[in-house]
C-alpha cells in the first residue's frame, strides 16, 4: 500500500510535530511535516523564482557582453555560462534524488519520495541541455557534434538513468508500490556521478580536463566571474521548479486521499 502523505502520522492541518520515528532526527522530521513544508514552500517558491530569473538575466548579460573572447576558443567560450550550470543541475539533481531516497528508506517519510519524483523531470531536462549545449559548443571547437568519449557517454547514461527513474517511480505509484524500488534505484544511480566527474582524468577524452575544482580554477578571472552568478541563478530557478512540482504532487495526493475517504464512507 502506498504510504500516502495524507495518511502519514506527520500529515495534517496543524503544525505540531507528531513524530512516530523512535531514534530519528527530530529537526529533519519537523521540516518533513507536509503542513509545515507547505507553510515554508508557498512563500519560498516566488522568492527562489524571482531571484533565479534576476540572476540568470544578469549572468546572460555579463556572459554575452562583459567578458572577453577566449584566446583559443574565441566567442564560443560564452557557451560555458549555460553549459556548466546545466551539467551542475544534471548531476546535482541526481545527488538530491539519492539523498531523498536514503531519507525515504531510512525514515520512511513519503515527502522524501515526493521530492525525488519532483526533482527527476527537471534534472533530466538539465542533463539533456548539458548534452545539447555541449554538442553545440563542440561543433565549432572540436569540429564534431558528438564523440563517444568518457565524459559525453557517461553524461548520456545519466540522462537515460533519469528516464529510468521517472518510469520506475511512475510505475511504482500506479501499482500502489511502497516506493522502495525507485529509492534503491535512486541510490544505485549515484555510481555514475564519480564516473562523470573523473572520466576526463581516467580516460583520454576529447573533452577538456577538469578546469574548476575545490582549490581553484584554471580559467582566467576575467572569464570566470559570470559563472557563479549563473550557477546561483539556475540553482534558485531549479529549486523553484522543484517546489512547484512538490506542491502539485502534495495537492494531488490530498485530493486522491479525499476521494478514497469518500469512497469508503
Amino acid at each position, binding site marked *: 500500500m502506498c504510504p500516502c502523505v495524507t495518511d502519514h502520522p506527520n500529515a495534517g492541518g496543524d503544525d505540531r510535530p507528531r513524530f512516530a520515528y523512535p531514534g530519528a532526527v527530530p529537526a529533519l522530521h519537523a521540516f518533513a511535516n507536509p503542513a509545515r513544508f507547505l507553510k515554508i514552500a508557498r512563500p519560498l517558491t516566488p522568492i527562489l*523564482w524571482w531571484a533565479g530569473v534576476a540572476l*540568470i538575466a544578469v549572468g*546572460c548579460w555579463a556572459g*554575452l557582453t562583459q567578458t572577453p573572447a577566449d584566446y583559443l576558443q*574565441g*566567442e*564560443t567560450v*560564452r*557557451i560555458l555560462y*549555460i*553549459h556548466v550550470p*546545466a551539467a551542475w543541475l544534471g548531476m546535482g539533481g541526481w545527488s538530491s534524488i539519492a539523498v531523498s531516497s536514503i531519507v525515504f528508506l531510512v525514515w520512511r517519510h513519503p515527502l522524501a519520495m515526493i521530492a525525488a519524483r519532483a526533482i527527476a*523531470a*527537471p534534472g533530466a*531536462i538539465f542533463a539533456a*541541455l548539458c548534452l*545539447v*549545449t555541449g554538442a*553545440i*559548443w563542440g*561543433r*565549432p571547437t572540436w569540429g564534431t557534434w558528438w564523440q563517444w568519449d568518457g565524459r559525453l557517454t557517461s553524461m548520456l547514461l545519466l540522462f537515460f538513468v533519469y528516464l529510468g527513474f521517472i518510469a520506475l517511480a511512475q510505475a511504482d505509484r500506479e501499482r500502489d508500490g511502497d516506493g522502495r524500488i525507485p529509492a534503491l534505484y535512486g541510490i544505485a544511480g549515484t555510481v555514475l556521478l564519480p564516473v562523470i566527474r573523473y572520466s576526463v582524468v581516467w580516460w583520454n577524452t576529447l573533452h577538456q580536463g577538469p578546469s574548476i575544482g575545490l582549490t581553484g580554477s584554471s580559467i582566467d578571472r576575467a572569464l570566470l566571474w559570470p559563472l557563479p552568478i549563473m550557477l546561483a541563478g*539556475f540553482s534558485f*530557478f531549479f529549486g*523553484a*521548479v522543484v517546489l*512547484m*512540482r512538490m*506542491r*502539485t*504532487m502534495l*495537492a*494531488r495526493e490530498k*485530493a486522491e486521499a479525499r476521494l478514497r475517504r469518500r469512497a469508503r464512507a
Partner: protein
Amino acid sequence: MNPWPFVTGAYALTLVAAAVVAWWSWRQMRDAEK
C-alpha cells in the same frame, strides 16, 4: 566559422527549455491547488 549562431542557439535553447519547464510546472501547480 562564425561562432555567434552557435552561441545564440545554445542560449536560446536553454532559456526556452527553462521557460517551458517553469511554465508547465506553474500551470500544473495552479490547477492542482485550485
